[in-house]
């Protein structure tokens, strides 16, 4: 947790032992060879700053009191700015690159928000370079867009899969570079320029990728309000041709965050284990399947109407499936369940759901079957699904080499490095995460040397931290 800045307060104490300059903004009398004078009182400060004889100070003091009373209820005029632009232009610099390590990936926001608040990062238009086996670009359905400006909601309500989009919506990042290994297929490689905004206070994007359509996050550009332009780049980090100069320049020096999820190096799909004896995940993959827009896009025949139609179909499908699974959770059988519209859930798919239920009930006691979990599990199946790739030692060595090469090619160092274990919920294998962390830290040290802070902040160990002391 961030600790009190006792250092700043002791700095403040030191300041008032300095000899004070007569023309100083902060006031005071110069006094060469004298004992350190006490801090000036208000009256002395006025006299000193204005170099006005004492007999005229009282008049000035009255004037000041009147002015202060007039100002009491008003805040001095600084330009009121729209959205979240800072009126402060001076950025602070870390003495060394800090490394902030969490378990749940969304917890890195705590650190990023403090960097934004203290102006160690500009408030807007930063670039997030995101090593991960997952894009984490889902939009939370139950969090309003406007909450993207409410730090407390963000820190308490976001989760591992949806922590990035609010930062794009609020403008903190305008570019995300997802670096993955080639066995991750959730979003195709390349540059994806799109708009992010809101529709009825829900974040949406006009990017017609399956990833967004499947989650109900796609909107047409016309439907979106208060939009910002963002760019998503997706690259295979296991390609030797990966060159960070493709997306980073010297101009990014002040706003580059390097974010590393350790499951980038080795990842499991924890949902594969759920009700494995009933072959649950494979059956869910069939039940939750939807027609992708990608073939039509690649053929050049897809239209916005197609995207909207696919998005609408997908939403109806998910709503209908949710109704079924919620009923099963409540009633523990299909009795009383209103049959879904056959254009949404075909009889063949409905039969698959019945079959799944029979197989689960054959293998597991009824009170162990969690239909809400099964629905969530099905929601991850999608057309490209969650990756499952537990890396061998040889593969890990290769990925570490790729990572080091990437770091060595960086045109500028990052301002800050955030890192996530993702091990508590079994994405990064728990028997590998410590080793992977150790290697990644070693590589960072090898490449950045003394530019890197000597000690990482272990948020998952409740290490105290203060961005002003880094």
């Amino acid at each position: 947790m961030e600790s009190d800045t006792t250092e700043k307060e002791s700095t403040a104490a030191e300041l008032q032992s300095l000899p004070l300059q007569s023309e100083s903004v902060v006031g005071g009398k110069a006094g060469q060879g004298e004992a350190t004078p006490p801090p000036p009182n208000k009256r002395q400060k006025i006299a000193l700053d204005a170099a006005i004889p004492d007999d005229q100070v009282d008049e000035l003091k009255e004037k000041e009191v009147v002015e202060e009373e007039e100002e009491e209820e008003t805040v001095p005029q600084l330009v009121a700015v729209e959205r979240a632009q800072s009126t402060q232009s001076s950025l602070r610099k870390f003495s060394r690159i800090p490394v902030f390590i969490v378990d749940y990936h969304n917890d890195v926001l705590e650190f990023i928000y403090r960097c934004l608040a203290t102006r160690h990062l500009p408030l807007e238009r930063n670039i997030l370079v995101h090593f991960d086996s997952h894009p984490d670009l889902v939009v939370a359905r139950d969090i309003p867009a406007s909450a993207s400006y409410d730090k407390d909601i963000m820190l308490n309500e976001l989760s591992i899969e949806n922590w990035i989009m609010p930062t794009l919506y609020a403008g903190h990042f305008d570019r995300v570079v997802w670096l993955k290994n080639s066995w991750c297929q959730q979003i195709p490689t390349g540059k994806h320029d799109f708009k992010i905004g809101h529709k009825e206070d829900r974040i949406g994007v006009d990017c017609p990728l399956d990833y967004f359509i499947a989650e109900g996050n796609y909107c047409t550009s016309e439907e979106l309000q208060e939009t910002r332009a963002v760019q998503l780049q997706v690259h295979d980090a296991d390609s030797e041709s990966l060159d960070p100069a493709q997306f980073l320049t010297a101009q990014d020096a002040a706003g580059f965050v390097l974010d590393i999820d350790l499951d980038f190096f080795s990842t499991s799909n924890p949902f594969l284990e759920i009700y494995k004896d009933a072959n649950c995940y494979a059956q869910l993959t069939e039940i939750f399947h939807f027609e992708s827009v990608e073939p039509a896009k690649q053929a050049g025949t897809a239209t916005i109407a197609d995207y909207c139609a696919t998005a609408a179909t997908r939403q109806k499908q998910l709503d209908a499936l949710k109704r079924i699974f919620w009923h099963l959770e409540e009633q523990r059988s299909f009795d009383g369940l209103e049959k879904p519209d056959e254009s949404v859930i075909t009889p063949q798919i409905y039969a698959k759901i019945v079959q799944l239920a029979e197989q689960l009930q054959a293998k597991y006691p009824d009170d162990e079957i969690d239909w809400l979990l099964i629905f969530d599990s099905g929601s991850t199946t999608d057309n490209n699904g969650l990756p499952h790739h537990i890396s061998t030692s040889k593969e890990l060595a290769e990925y570490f080499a790729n990572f080091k090469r990437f770091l060595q090619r960086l045109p500028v160092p990052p301002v800050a490095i955030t890192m996530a274990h993702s091990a508590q919920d079994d994405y990064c294998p728990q028997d590998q995460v410590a080793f992977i962390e150790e290697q990644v830290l070693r590589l960072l040290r090898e490449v950045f040397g003394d530019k890197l802070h000597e000690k990482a902040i272990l948020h998952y160990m409740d290490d105290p931290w203060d961005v002003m002391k880094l």
Partner: protein
Amino acid sequence: MGRRKSKRKPPPKRKNIEPLDQQFNCPFCNHEKSCEVKMDKGRNTAKITCRVCLEDFQTGINFLSEPIDVYNDWVDACETAN
């Protein structure tokens, strides 16, 4: 596709994010915890005032700013001036 937190385990206990300091020592009169901050996030401005010696300082803020950031800006301004 979006990954989900596995629900096999109970939801993680949310860490208590400790609130940051709200009152500060005055860099002028050195009274402890005598300075209070008024934040106007609507106008992106804040003012810190010492209730003992009445020194004050104004600065720009953003919606993520905390009172301690206003205080730090003040101390930095004092350092720069000195």
